[in-house]
């Protein structure tokens, strides 16, 4: 039994951005993530120079949100303290962790940098998304071995039932060396039980898995 719908979804992997099942931006597979991210930044016309100071995990998260924001009406529904952010991954902030660890690996060259260290927390991507899109709702960052639709589903439904949250941006933002991918989707609570689902899919574990495997 579900009382919520899946509103829209964006996946980014293999240098391709797919929004609600349609490829909207693609760049050559020979390009590095940094090159791809820069091109995607221009595609979205982001005009947000802070983007280039972020670590790869935050960049991937930012681009994923820009993707779903292209869906009509989304900008209005996320800008509220009733909209939560629930993201997850496997590798936490391992990229920034490794850079920081390297900067302190020997006492002769001991130069830890605050601008790297701040990204050694996985929830910084939540903070970056919150700042850019002025989102002040509930925040949660979860870690799991692999993409766990069930955990995201239970967390979101629980939040809808036990708090004033009525919308959630959920997903998986994973970055570990050459292995990176993201899925971000919006789910919305149906406040009125008589309300029709319209063209939207029901929010279920099966449908979330379909989004991830698409």
């Amino acid at each position, binding site marked *: 039994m579900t009382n919520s719908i899946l509103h829209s979804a964006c996946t980014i992997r293999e240098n391709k951005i797919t929004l609600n099942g349609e490829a909207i931006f693609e760049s050559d597979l020979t390009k590095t993530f940094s090159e791809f991210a820069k091109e995607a930044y221009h595609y979205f016309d982001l005009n947000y120079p802070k983007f280039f100071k972020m670590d790869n995990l935050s960049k991937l998260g930012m681009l994923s949100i820009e993707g779903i924001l292209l869906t009509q009406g989304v900008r209005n529904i996320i800008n509220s*303290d009733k909209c939560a*952010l629930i993201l997850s991954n*496997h*590798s*936490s902030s*391992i990229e920034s*962790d*490794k850079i*920081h*660890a390297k900067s*302190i*690996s020997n*006492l002769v060259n*001991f130069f*830890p*940098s*605050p601008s790297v*260290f*701040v990204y*050694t*927390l*996985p*929830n*910084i991507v*939540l*903070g*970056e998304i*919150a*700042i850019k*899109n*002025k*989102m*002040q*709702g*509930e*925040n*949660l*960052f*979860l*870690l*799991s*071995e692999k993409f*766990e639709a069930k*955990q995201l589903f*239970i*967390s979101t*439904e*629980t*939040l809808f*039932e*036990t*708090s*004033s949250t009525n919308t959630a941006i959920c997903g998986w933002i994973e970055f570990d060396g050459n292995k990176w991918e993201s899925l971000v989707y919006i789910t919305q609570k149906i406040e009125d039980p008589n309300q029709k689902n319209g063209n939207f899919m029901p929010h279920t574990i099966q449908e979330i898995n379909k989004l991830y495997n698409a």
Partner: protein
Amino acid sequence: MNSIGIIGSNIISPLGNSSEANFEALVKGKSGLSSFSFPFSDSPICASLLDQSLLEIEFSSRIKSTKEFTRLEKTVLLSIQNILNKHPFDHKNKNTLLILATTKGNIDLLEKNNYTNIPMERVYLSAFAETIRNHFDFHHPCMVVSNACVSGVMAILWAQRLISNKEYSNVIVVGTDLISPFTLSGFKSFNALSPEPCRPFDKNRIGINLGEATASILISNKESEIKILAGSSANDANHISGPSRTAEGLFMSINKTFEQHKNIQPDFISAHGTATEFNDEMESIGFSKAEFQKIPTHSLKGYYGHTLGAAGVLETIIAIESLKNNILIPSRGFEIPGTSKELNIITKLEKKTLSTFLKTSSGFGGSNATLLIEKN
């Protein structure tokens, strides 16, 4: 709304290996903070560190396993085992969930892996969690929460929500982080470390101390003397590392937590109080906006330092012990008011009838989380 009770707890810290021993140490005014030398630092660093040999003795006497574990894993296994010994229940059934709250887990493996049989993969939080799950044979994979310094409060909050939504009957929440050059050098690069024991909310505060701890709480749908009434989280949407100058996120979280409990005035506040200039100032603004300036308030960072992912769980447990014993614990290190909005910081140990408290926490990523807890 279902009743969500706190059944038991445990703390592994430099001040003791049970919640009771830790509370007793605080009543006596003891602190875990002292000076330590690190090769990378010219001057000593003030921190609250676990005694390694005591940990080994305690671990080998209580945990039966032939496997090798990291230092962090040992504290977690020990803490959970202590809870299960004191409050035995069928923890292997599908109605039980383990939530782990940590910022960095086994991050020391990334610097130097000194273990013989522990693969590097255990630096990944899900692999660390799976090690703990396998030892106790928990039915579900652990829920692993990593929300910077609010991780511990968030984990308790989610335990309350999941039980309230009837997903589970029992949740064990463990908050844990140990200190390694990784975190020390990072905070040092921010110029955030105080060379002396920290002074939360004091005029002369100059920064944080880091501390090691693992703290666990057993939460259940059973009636209990101590109940979690409500909680929430909110984001500042302002800066990834700097506290908000308007305390917007903290104030929003307090408002949401009290939405259904407007008639409750908490008897005291267990604040985050890291002793950095901007954090404590931000909290004073948040508490003043909520009209909580007169409520007795403390920070426990002067006893434990900032224990990162463990802090929210550890500090909630101590506050629960305060409720049970009707004793207000003073805010160690505070002498002269030093925030733009003056707070009622607890300076003396006081016997007082207590029935509710507010726990707050704020951290990197603009996150804030609060809990309201009551004694029957």
